């Protein structure tokens, strides 16, 4: 009896290692594949197909890309970096200010303001009215602001920050109030320094959102100089997709030069770029953010 129980326990452990190990590999493999194709020689890839080990290791693809469309990519990089930095800074200021205000218990209309925020999550006007207002009244078509403003305030992130701010003891604020400090001063001098993790977590979430955004570009931007990196990759891939469907007449397809397999993957790697390098350092903040958000529920 005892023995069979132990056997089933061992089976569970074994199964756990297998399941987690396999799923982990399933998540890793595509990235290794992408990286290794980008480092392979085009000729070998066409002959043997995609492979998770570089076939005839070479850096030629990267050299080729930067020699031929280097300016294009650098420009897109510039757009993406600008949007990410400015957007994240702006979003952090806007979000942390309102989150701080809503964390103050004595603020009488905080529930009304929180409702105004919440309502936008559950009900929206839809894409078209939003688009018409943005283009006709705010002039966002082909403006770099179109990549920043529409996503500069996330209600989710605000509530996440408010959870952190709420955990600061109000007695700290009281002391500062008695000394005559304004709320803004308390926010800047006490609340923010005490919530460094929160600031970092939410900041990283905004940064990731801006880095990965291409939707705003799809909607608002058709000036090539303002293409962010992700959208640049999207335009390359969607041409490829459309042609591999076989429905586009060959005459029309002939006008579009297809990027080679290695180029596609190299551009993908360039797009992921900084995320790969930063990932080991920022991962834990995201985990923390998700956990805090989950506790709120």
């Amino acid at each position, binding site marked *: 009896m005892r023995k069979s129980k132990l056997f089933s326990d061992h089976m569970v452990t074994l199964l756990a290692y297998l399941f987690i190990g396999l799923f982990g590999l399933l998540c890793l493999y595509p990235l290794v594949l992408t990286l290794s194709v980008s480092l392979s020689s085009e000729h070998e890839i066409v002959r043997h197909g995609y492979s998770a080990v570089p076939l005839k290791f070479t850096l030629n693809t990267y050299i080729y890309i930067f020699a031929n469309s280097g300016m294009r990519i650098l420009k897109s990089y510039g757009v993406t970096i600008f949007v990410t930095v400015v957007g994240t800074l702006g979003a952090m200021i806007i979000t942390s200010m309102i989150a701080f205000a809503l964390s103050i218990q004595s603020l009488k*209309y905080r529930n009304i303001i929180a409702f105004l925020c919440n309502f936008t999550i559950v009900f929206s006007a839809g894409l078209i009215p939003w688009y018409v207002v943005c283009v006709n009244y705010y002039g966002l078509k082909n403006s770099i602001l179109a990549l920043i403003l529409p996503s500069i*305030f996330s209600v989710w992130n605000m509530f996440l920050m408010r959870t952190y701010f709420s955990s600061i003891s109000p007695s700290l604020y009281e002391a500062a109030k008695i000394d005559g400090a304004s709320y803004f001063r308390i926010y800047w001098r006490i609340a923010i320094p005490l919530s460094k993790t929160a600031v970092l977590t939410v900041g990283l979430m905004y940064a990731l959102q801006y880095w990965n955004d291409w939707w705003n570009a799809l909607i608002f931007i058709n000036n090539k100089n303002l293409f962010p990196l992700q959208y640049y990759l999207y335009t390359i891939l969607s041409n490829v997709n459309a042609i591999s469907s076989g429905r586009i007449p060959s005459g029309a397809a002939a006008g579009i030069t297809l990027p080679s397999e290695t180029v596609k993957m190299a551009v993908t790697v360039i797009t992921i770029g900084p995320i790969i390098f930063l990932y080991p350092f920022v991962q834990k903040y995201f985990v923390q953010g998700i956990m805090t958000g989950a506790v709120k529920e």
Partner: protein
Amino acid sequence: MKSKRIQNEAPGPARDRKKEFLHEMKKNKGLYLMCMPALIVLVMFCYIPFAGTWMAFTDFNVVDGIFGSKFVGFDNFKYFFSKSSMGWRVTYNTLFINFFGIILGLIVPISIAVFFNEIRSKVFKKLTQSFMFFPYFLSWVVVGAIIYGFFSTDVGVINNMLRSLGMEPIKWYAEPKYWKGIIIIASMWKWSGYSSIIYMAAMANFDGSLYEAAEVDGASKVQRILYLTVPMLKPTAVVLTLMSIGRIFYGDFGMIYGIVGNNPVLIDAVTVIDTYVYQTMRTLGFSYATAIGLFQSVMGLILVTIANRMAKKYNDGEGLF
């Protein structure tokens, strides 16, 4: 004259409320000012566009503007669900993809969390969690590129495998029937690591003494998982599922466009309401597209309200929002 009378007759409480309001504004001026930038953004990008939903009931043209165009009542909605249009099709696609997304989004992350808990090796845990969480950091465009690497007809990994098994390669990008499945699995792949962290957070709060007691009583690991862990994860699972059900009418635009792009053969099979709105805005006009968006928002609001009520019932008054 009229306004004066109203002022004179204004009952006490109302005037008090006004006074109170001004007093509060003065007292906490700083705090309200700090809310302003965010509220301005919300008004600009969420509340002002509400006026534009009027387009759904008109035959919009640029010359007459939003409020000058001809009023047509519910014609746009009727057309959406008429036989000639894609209405039912895109609604079905949206619900289908989301439904299976929700099911997989329950099974896989919970399995990950439960199994993860059984692993003792710290190094193994750290490595695998890093791998599993990474897809969350990729944009759908990058995921689209990866999927291309798997399903490309000539060089893709899957066709390579089929060839080495002696089978006929498949022209994936010309076969719409596979793509709902591919998209559902891709979404599982991208989100599982993320969602499993939520379940792990819930597990971190479990009472360890329960497990010790079960162990003393001779419960096997399987029993502990089935009778302790899974029941204790249920509240989290219910809340997360209700949240997804509340959003079941919303498709993931980035996911569909990032993976399928504008491939004319595949797009019909995976068009969801959101992508359909974007397509029709160019072809069938703003009014019609607005009507579809409004239909989606209203359905979404109804479902969220129901889901929220169910969550409250289940959670002792604690709703989703």
